[in-house]
Structures are given as C-alpha cells and as structure tokens.
C-alpha cells in the first residue's frame, strides 16, 4: 500500500521534473529528491499545490565542507498521504545564493533569515531585518564548519585562567573508591 503510493509519487515527480535525482530506498514513509537550485521553487510549489504536501516540517542547511558545497534541505509533509519528502539542493559554498521562497510558506522567512545569518547564504529578495539572533556580529557565519568557535571565543571573550593548583583529582577519587578509570576516558585527563 505504502509502497504503491510512494511509487506513484515518484513517478509523478519524475514525469514533471526531469532533473530530480531520486534516492528511494527507505522502507518507511519517506522519499528523497535532489534537484537543481533553479528547480526548487517550482518543485515546492508543485508539491504544495498539486500533490497535497501542504506542511513544511523543516528547512535546513548542511555544510559539506569537503565538497565545497552547502546543501539546503526542505522537508514537506502530506497529512493526507502521511508521507514526508526531503527536497535537497546544493549551493556553491563560496558564493551561496538562493531565491526568496517565503511566498510558498510564510514561515520560510524565519528559516531564510537563519540561513543568511548562520551560513552566509545570500537570499535574494528577502524582506526582513538584518539581524536575526546575533546582535553586533562581526565574525564569519558561525555555523559553517570552518569556523572555529573555540578560537573565536578565546579571541573575543575573556577567559578565566585556571587555578594553578588545579589538578586531575579523578585518579585520587578512583583509587579511594577502588575503581578503575577505563582507557577511553584517560585521554580526557589533563
């Protein structure tokens, strides 16, 4: 039943969007399509208006540092068919540009502001205040993987120096209680 339904949906989408690369090996109610950046608005519109995927569950950005790309993931859900579809697209990491999509789902506005602030995605045509969560932010987009938060925090914020007599007391405690520290935990000791 579910399989037939999924098959039917895959067929329909393949018929309409030739570039949709399908990854359909899930044995539960999930489908996955990867499309080109230009196709995103039309496929989302199509899913929402024609196929009953009226609910936007989530929109996310994934940083594929090694491949030099940013991936946008939109998860839509059909209350009628009880199926969720992942729609993915890849953006160039050095110059990530996407179109504003908040006419499809107004809540996308918030997600797009997050993309812009946290990943540095340029959203053309987005109407929103400049600042989203970070105020007075001056560094690089903090959710990119090449952003070193520890180094940034060390550079920006004061750090309290540890006490000079600070020692690793775990061994003492372990010896006192007659326990052994497992090997994997030992590498965390100072």
């Amino acid at each position, binding site marked *: 039943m579910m399989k037939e339904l999924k098959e039917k949906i895959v067929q329909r989408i393949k018929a309409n969007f030739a570039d949709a690369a399908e990854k359909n090996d899930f044995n539960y109610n999930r489908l996955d399509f990867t499309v080109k950046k230009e196709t995103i608005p039309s496929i989302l519109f199509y899913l929402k208006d024609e196929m009953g995927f009226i609910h936007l569950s989530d929109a996310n950005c994934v940083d594929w540092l090694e491949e030099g790309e940013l991936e946008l993931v939109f998860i839509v859900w059909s209350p009628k068919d009880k199926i969720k579809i992942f729609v993915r697209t890849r953006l160039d990491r050095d110059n990530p540009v996407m179109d504003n999509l908040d006419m499809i789902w107004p809540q996308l506005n918030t997600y797009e502001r997050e993309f812009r602030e946290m990943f540095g995605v340029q959203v053309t045509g987005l109407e929103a205040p400049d600042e989203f*969560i*970070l*105020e*007075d932010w*001056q*560094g690089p987009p*903090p959710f990119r993987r090449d*952003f070193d*938060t*520890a180094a*940034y*925090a060390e550079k*920006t*914020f*004061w*750090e*309290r120096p540890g006490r000079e007599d600070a020692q690793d007391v775990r061994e003492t405690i372990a010896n006192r209680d007659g326990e052994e520290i497992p090997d994997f935990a030992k590498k965390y000791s100072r």
Partner: protein
Amino acid sequence: MVNDKNSQKIVDFIQNWARKHSIWVLAYGTGCGAIEIPPTMTSRYDAERLGVRGAATPRQADVLLITGYLTVKTLKRVIRVYEQMQDPKYVIGFGSCTINGGMYYDSYNTIKVLDKYLPVDVYINGCMPRPEAVLSGFARLQKRIAEGRANGAQQYKDNLEWYRANQKKIIPNWIMPEYNW
C-alpha cells in the same frame, strides 16, 4: 556632628544592617538557572525569612541576580539594567556560566567571565546551584554588606572606563545612554 567619624560609623552600621536584612532581588532569568529561583522563594526554602524578596523593576531592586549564561545580546540588557538600579547595588553571579563560561566555554556568543563586564559581589558556583547554594550565596552577600565590603558599585564607578572598554570590545555598536555619576 554629622561629619564626625564615629557617628558616621554608627550610621553606617545601622544602614548596613538594614541593607543586609532587606534584599530586593531582580532576577534576570536569562539562562536555565531561572528555574532555581521559584523553589528558593517559595515554601520549601523560603528566602523571604532572610528579608530576600523579589523586585519587579531595576529602580526598586538592590541585587541583580544573573542566573546563568549571558550571550552578547543579553549582556547588553544586563548592563542597561544594572545602570538603571539605584545605589547601593550588588550583583550576584549565579552558576558556572557566569564564572568561567561553564559548559558554554567555547561558545561563539556567550561571555565567560562576568566580572570583566560588571562588578560582581558574590559568585554562586554550581551547574545548577541548588537552592541551598543560593541561600548560602545570599548569606555571603549579607555578610559582605554588614562588613561594608560589598562595594561593587563603587568599583564600577571608579573603573568605569575599564569596564566600558571591555563592554565595547564585544558590543561594537554601542547605543546606550551614558552612565553619569
């Protein structure tokens, strides 16, 4: 007579005693620590028997209780609130986050050491500190007030430039009114 040192001492003693026993707290519930305040105030631990009582606005409050981590965004508000409070005023840093960043030690947007930005009179350690610890913190503050050592506000006034420089380092877009006394 009024300028006489001994009589001033007596006045100070009485005033400090009153301040010690009447602590109106403005709990700035930024982080997860805010959840520890209700049990401290209500029937189980009853901080009111020590004269500790909630205040609604900074104009009425004596103590600014900063419960937990401070992001850059909330730090701005905390500084504002602190500057709106009336002298004499005290700050309690609550939880590890205000001491050394706690579990947010490497976060890109939370400060780690509160006393670089505001004069902290008493720190309460723990993540989270239990209400007993909070009460002990209040007791410590009371002791300092009674001894006349809780002079963070004076320190802030004297070293305003240093504090301002620290604050402006992480808040480059500074639009707050000047602190003028």
